[in-house]
């Protein structure tokens, strides 16, 4: 297999954006191309992650992007894996370079949904569940994670205030990220007093619906060396699955796909969870970050909440979790999120993360899943 590198990365700001889905897809892609210092014609194909293009009247975005980049003859593929679309798309691009099919690709993720309003966005997202059993019975995504949260509160020594500390920590990091949707410090009290969305989760336990696009340039090691500039190496890649409906899971407080994907990625990289300096994890809800950090092997089952309580996941503590602000503060444009995590790792490992830099970081991890973790991809990167 060829070694695979990330040569450039860029994002639009995340939030409520006025520009069209095609415009923001292109803006992020151009910033990744410029970051890599390459010409568009060096890109052999594109991988696009997007879920609800239909909401902004544009599906089949790949050819539109390639046309705008002046390379309409290059193939593109659009990938949907709910909120995990970005990391799955990254994996496909990675695999194609590793296999030697291409030496340089662009992977761009995008979502444009905020104009549809909360009710319809909530409705669209519910289509990502096992609809016959969940969405059809009125389960929203906050509701499904709230069901996990109540199971966690029932099983372990945890409180709603503990979950709130995840939100506070991620907002602290997001304040330092100019691209973040929610650049605002919050307190545990703010979270506890925010409106209940799906008990026990309150508004500030939930990530926002965001618009946004992120893009990265992947290439072979040979291509990266020839083009110079800053790049990072992908040293591990894993994917996994879980029963689509929560009711089918052996444990309601574990996401099996995270365990499967991370074990594969660690094995490929020849490392363990202890070697990770920082991680961008899928914190669509505060409970999710707690569960993720356990399933990724950073903490024992039931102890993730203790780590949050003790501040061990803050920036430059034991392990910096979501230095970007995570989905919670940076925002969650679902098709872009998995690629946005790679953008953060690229910025961190090439010295571009400014005030939110994880000191002396050499190895970073991205963890991104679809729905309640029915699909998941984990990648491990190291500085060169």
């Amino acid at each position: 297999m060829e070694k695979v590198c990330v040569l450039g990365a860029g994002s639009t700001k995340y939030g409520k954006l006025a520009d069209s889905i095609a415009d923001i897809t292109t803006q992020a892609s151009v910033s990744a191309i410029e970051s890599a210092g390459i010409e568009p014609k060096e890109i052999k194909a594109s991988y696009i992650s997007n879920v609800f293009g239909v909401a902004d009247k544009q599906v089949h975005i790949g050819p539109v992007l390639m046309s705008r980049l002046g390379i309409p003859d290059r193939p593109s593929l659009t990938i949907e894996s709910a909120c995990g679309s970005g990391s799955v798309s990254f994996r496909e691009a990675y695999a194609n370079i590793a296999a030697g099919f291409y030496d340089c690709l662009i992977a761009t993720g995008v979502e444009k949904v905020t104009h549809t309003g909360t009710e319809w966005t909530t409705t669209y997202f519910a289509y990502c569940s096992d609809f016959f059993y969940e969405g059809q019975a009125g389960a929203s995504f906050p509701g499904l994670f709230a069901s996990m949260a109540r199971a966690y509160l029932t099983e372990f020594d945890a409180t709603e205030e503990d979950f709130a500390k995840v939100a506070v920590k991620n907002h602290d990091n997001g304040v330092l990220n100019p691209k973040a949707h929610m650049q605002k410090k919050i307190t545990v009290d703010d979270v506890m007093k925010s409106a209940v969305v799906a008990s026990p989760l309150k508004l500030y336990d939930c990530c926002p619906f965001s618009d946004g696009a992120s893009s990265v340039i992947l290439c072979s090691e040979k291509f990266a060396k020839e083009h110079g500039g800053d790049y990072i190496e992908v040293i591990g890649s894993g994917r996994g699955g879980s029963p689509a409906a929560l009711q089918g899971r052996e444990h309601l407080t574990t996401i099996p796909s995270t365990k499967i994907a991370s074990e594969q990625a660690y094995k490929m990289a020849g490392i363990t969870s202890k070697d990770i300096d920082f991680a961008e994890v899928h914190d669509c809800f505060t409970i999710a970050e707690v569960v993720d950090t356990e399933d990724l092997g950073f903490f024992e089952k039931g102890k993730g909440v203790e780590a949050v309580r003790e501040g061990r996941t803050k920036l430059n503590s034991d392990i910096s979790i979501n230095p970007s602000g995570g989905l919670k503060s940076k925002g969650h444009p679902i098709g872009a999120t998995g690629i946005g995590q790679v953008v953060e790792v690229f910025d961190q490992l090439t010295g571009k993360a400014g005030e939110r830099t994880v000191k002396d970081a050499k190895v970073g991890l991205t963890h991104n899943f679809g729905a309640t973790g029915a699909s998941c991809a984990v990648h491990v990167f190291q500085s060169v």
Partner: protein
Amino acid sequence: MSVEEQVIENAKQGKLLTHKCTNCGYLHLSTAYYCLKCGSKGFEDVLLEGTGTIVTYTIITVAPAGFEKYTPYAFVVMILDNAELRISGFMAEIATPSDLPVGTRAKITGFDERGIIIEKQ
């Protein structure tokens, strides 16, 4: 009748249609086509009473389209009596966690535009 239609017709009678693997005996919801444990395709239909115990739930106040008129309501996950099998569904008129402690006895009572309907026993 499709598999989902069979689930619906039985839920309207307060029952849950399940699939028991004829090779290893593992019990599934009837939407399973291959055994989770042994990969076998042979199943026998087993009709269970739709009674059980609530293992987790949420009370939804921000609802998807079509559910606004029911808020607040609960989405519940129930473990069936005498079976290692869970089923989720819609429960009406739950406003606070004190209305529905984990461990509450419940039963399937129907199926409509709110999916599988579960009520407190």
